[in-house]
């Protein structure tokens, strides 16, 4: 039996790096320190065994060789006038580089799962920047922590323990007792249940409430009505006082802001609130990124193309405009004529309209697991699992990159090998 320590968890944006894994005969037998979700991901379960293909989406798949599947995938992409290459969150930065190169090669739109997650946060960063910090700053210093529209108990189970609530640090030896925890949400989540203060807002009202807080902070409380978005002015004034009294405050926000009415403008507003709080004390804001390497795609895409996501290579040079070039934009407009879905599950996580269009066009799936995307795919190429069977780089929610270890030997080829071969085939087909 081999015991691997300091392993990284390949589930969420916390990227816990203190996991211990026991391996026997190339099988993971035990996972320690991980949360329930992380342990499930690392332990794994049944996989797609071999590549599969079908021409009729209503028909059954037929097992094929990797070469056949790769050839078919290359042909689909090479023949397409508006290919979409989507996913990437469960794969490493090294995979993203190969993907971006292939997207350039075939003139595709490349987009990642941020588009249904924190894509709006990136749009907000374009407007206001992002005053943030690494999670260790929060652990060592924060005495006021706000979770706004985020529910770490469910989505980031060890966040509170490792970084934000219970964690002890240099300037906070008491951990939980040294912190005031505020939760702002539309329903009393388990996270809200653990807070010192829970502020329940009317769904979709976040934008109004943040503006009211900013007005109060700016000394303009007089213009704020008695109640905003279901919160009394008194509560808002008290909240501003609490935030101002912090020595180091941190806001962690989630889908409650990115997906509600006003979309990215909610975050734009929250970033401004954070910036303005810095006139009084130290405040930072951090998106609770979902998949472990959804942040990494944004980083790689930014240094390779200048833009963090939703890049359209149709004309050989990067063009970027979510609302026009994001995955659901082109799917719901029925523009896309072929798609490659890799390390992400559009079939499960896109609105029915988008999945309906995927069901109409040729779809290549590259993934270890059978999921709703498989159901609408024509070519399915199983791969090794990044972070369990492959080593490589990912970015934590705060932009810290770490290298994942290989825990067991893979039985399938890696995403990189598949993408390199598809690229090679595409070049042959196009006569380059």
């Amino acid at each position, binding site marked *: 039996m081999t015991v691997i320590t300091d392993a990284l968890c390949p*589930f*969420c944006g916390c990227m816990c790096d203190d996991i211990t894994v026991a391996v026997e005969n190339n099988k993971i037998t035990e996972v320690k320190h991980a949360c*329930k*979700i992380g342990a*499930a*991901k690392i332990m*794994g*379960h049944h996989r797609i065994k071999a590549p599969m293909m079908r021409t009729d*989406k*209503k028909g059954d798949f037929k097992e094929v060789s990797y070469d056949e599947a790769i050839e078919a995938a290359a042909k689909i992409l090479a023949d397409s006038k508006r290919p979409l290459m989507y996913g990437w969150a469960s794969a490493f930065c090294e995979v993203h580089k190969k993907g971006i190169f292939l997207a350039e090669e075939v003139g595709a739109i490349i*987009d990642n799962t941020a588009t*249904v997650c924190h*894509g*709006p946060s990136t*749009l907000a960063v374009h407007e206001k920047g992002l005053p943030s910090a690494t999670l260790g700053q929060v652990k060592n210093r924060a005495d006021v922590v706000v979770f706004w529209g985020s*529910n770490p*108990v*469910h*989505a980031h189970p060890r966040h509170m323990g490792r970084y934000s609530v219970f964690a002890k640090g240099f300037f906070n030896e008491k951990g939980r007792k040294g912190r005031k925890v505020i939760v702002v949400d*539309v*329903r*009393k*989540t*388990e996270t*809200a*249940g653990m807070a010192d203060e829970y502020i329940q807002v009317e*769904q*979709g009202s976040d934008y109004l409430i943040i503006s009211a807080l900013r007005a109060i902070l700016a000394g303009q409380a007089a213009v704020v009505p008695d109640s905003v978005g279901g919160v009394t002015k008194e509560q808002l004034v008290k909240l501003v006082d609490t935030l101002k009294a912090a020595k180091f405050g941190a806001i962690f926000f989630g*889908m*409650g802001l*990115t*997906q*509600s009415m006003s*979309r*990215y403008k909610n975050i734009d507003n929250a970033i401004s609130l954070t910036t303005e709080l810095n006139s009084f004390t130290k405040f930072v804001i951090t998106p609770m990124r979902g998949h472990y390497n959804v942040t990494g795609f944004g980083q790689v895409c930014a240094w390779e193309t200048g833009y963090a996501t939703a890049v359209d290579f149709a004309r050989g040079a990067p063009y970027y405009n*979510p*609302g026009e070039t*994001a*995955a*659901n*934009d082109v799917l*719901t407009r029925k523009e896309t004529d072929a798609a490659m879905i890799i390390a992400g*599950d559009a*079939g*499960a*996580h*896109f*609105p*029915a*309209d*988008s*999945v*309906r269009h*995927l*069901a109409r066009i040729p779809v290549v799936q590259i993934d270890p*697991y059978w*999921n*709703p995307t498989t*159901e*609408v795919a024509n070519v399915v190429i199983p791969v090794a699992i990044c972070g369990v069977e492959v080593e490589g780089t990912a970015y934590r929610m705060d932009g810290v990159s770490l290298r994942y270890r290989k825990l067991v030997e893979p039985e399938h080829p890696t995403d990189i090998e598949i993408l390199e071969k598809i690229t090679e085939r595409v070049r042959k087909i196009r006569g380059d």
Partner: protein
Amino acid sequence: MTLKVNLITGRTINQGVTIENKTSSDYQEATACCELNSKEAGLLGKPGSNIKVKTKHGEVVVKLKENNGNPDGLAFIPMGPWANAVVDPDTKGCGMPGFKGIPAQIDATSEKVLLMKELIARYK
């Protein structure tokens, strides 16, 4: 009776635990459900009974579940294919579909909850 609600979707821990195992009954159990507070759930049936959620964008049958964190008029379906059968596809000019804040109607139903494969088959 028909319950009019504001529908939101989002993560849950069991949705996370089963996310890489979407052909399983565990995944269906974790995501093909709709949470209401017990007062409103009581208007539709017992926890575990089938309900049909209808929006402008589609309809889906899921299991009724209680969550007393929800205020009146707020329904929650964990993210996944069942939720996505009824969410708003409009990306509002910024790439993000409407996963939260969708006006919906909920009724008790005797129709069955579709399996993941059956649900997606509807789109083909």
